[in-house]
């Protein structure tokens, strides 16, 4: 399974697209996402192989803006990948609200503690919210949406940890630089 995915990614990389392709339209973002010159997409694309991944959104929690979205390697082809997709906008807004409310809670508790991650378990989907404090004007969050039928939550979290820093610079071959 992993080998097939890796192979597919390799193919996508080789069929390669230049930066010019990535500016043509949103419909080809899916195809050009791996061999992108964009460091942000490259870093997020590393996470595409997580089993059952539907989307990865990079969100600024202070504005709830979707900064970037990447679609999972074997997600339903109907899942689009535009930053203004209503579902992506809704997930980003909900996740930002959750982070804001937990911020109110930790501030009011007054204890020296901070949010590590949030798991939202719905009947069909998991949403994992992972804060990245060192990046952006005042930190960003990564929101992973997973298909519950194809996801083992413990395994997904383990896979996630195995990536190390999620927003590390990645070279063209998908290795952490």
């Amino acid at each position, binding site marked *: 399974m992993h080998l097939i995915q890796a192979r597919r990614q390799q193919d996508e990389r080789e069929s390669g697209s230049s930066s010019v392709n990535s500016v043509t339209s949103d419909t080809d973002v899916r195809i050009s996402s791996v061999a992108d010159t964009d*460091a942000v997409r490259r870093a997020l694309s590393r996470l595409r192989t997580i089993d059952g991944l539907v989307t990865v959104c990079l969100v*600024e929690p202070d504005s709830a803006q979707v900064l970037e979205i990447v679609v999972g390697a074997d997600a339903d082809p109907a899942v689009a990948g535009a930053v*203004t997709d209503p579902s992506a906008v809704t997930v980003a807004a909900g996740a930002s609200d959750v982070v804001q409310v937990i911020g109110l809670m930790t501030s009011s508790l007054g204890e020296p503690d901070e949010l590590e991650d949030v798991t939202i378990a719905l009947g069909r989907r998991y949403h994992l919210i992972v804060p990245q404090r060192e990046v952006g004007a005042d930190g960003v969050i990564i929101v992973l949406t997973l298909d519950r039928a194809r996801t083992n939550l413990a395994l997904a979290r383990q896979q996630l940890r195995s990536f190390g820093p999620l927003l590390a610079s990645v070279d063209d071959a998908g290795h952490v630089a």
Partner: protein
Amino acid sequence: MTPVMSPKSWRWAGRTRAADRLFELAAEEATGALHLNGPWGGTIFLVQGRIDYVESVLTPGVEALLLRPPRTDEQSWAELVPALRRGETVETEAARSAAARLLRSQLASDIDAEILRRTASADAALAALGTAVPETARTRTRFRPDERHWCPSVRTFTVVDVLAEVDRRKAVLARMTLGIQPDRVVRRAPQLPIERVRLTATQWNVARAADGSRTAQDIAWQLGHGVFATTMVIHQLARLGVLTADQESPESPGPQMVPARHVLSFLRASAAGLHLE
């Protein structure tokens, strides 16, 4: 290749002349810079009809976000900010070349730089494209073909994507409570309503800067943060009782104001935004 950004697909009550011009340029797949002058002035950089970057006279650009302390020492930063806000050419050029040097030196990671660039651009878009400029105001738009932004582009967005984000932010601002707005002066509360409170570094810096003479916009510049994000942080602090808005102009909510819910919800605002006609 049919462009999906026809003005007809864009139903937005507050559409401005600048937005109309952007749709034209998108249809032409133009590359260059659209300059808007006036108090809400700014520059929109396009590459093949897609928006590469937006700059505004009211919000800190990517160079400011990159150079903010501790990258620049506090003293030089305090001198640089007023010059950047006045748009002084010499200082702006110096800041840009310093930021470009920083990027080349790789002291700022390419990911961090790109995220700051998108953050700054969305913040500027709200200021430059989200303000309903009165018909009487003499705003002129001028397009300079082939002009590019100093910071090389790696990702562009459609005009519709950018305007949708502007619209979403407007819906959030319309739901702000406690008198918080980007241009409203804020100050620290004389007394905390709770026994103790724990603030993040940013919240502390914002609270420290809120001395009763500064607006959210001023504080954003001072800290090198986005104006919209800083306004959200201020709302959160007001909710905690740490800050209050100046009551000089008593709460005279606009027509869109909704019942006061002090916990502002992005989700609720975006749901309202989606149903806007």
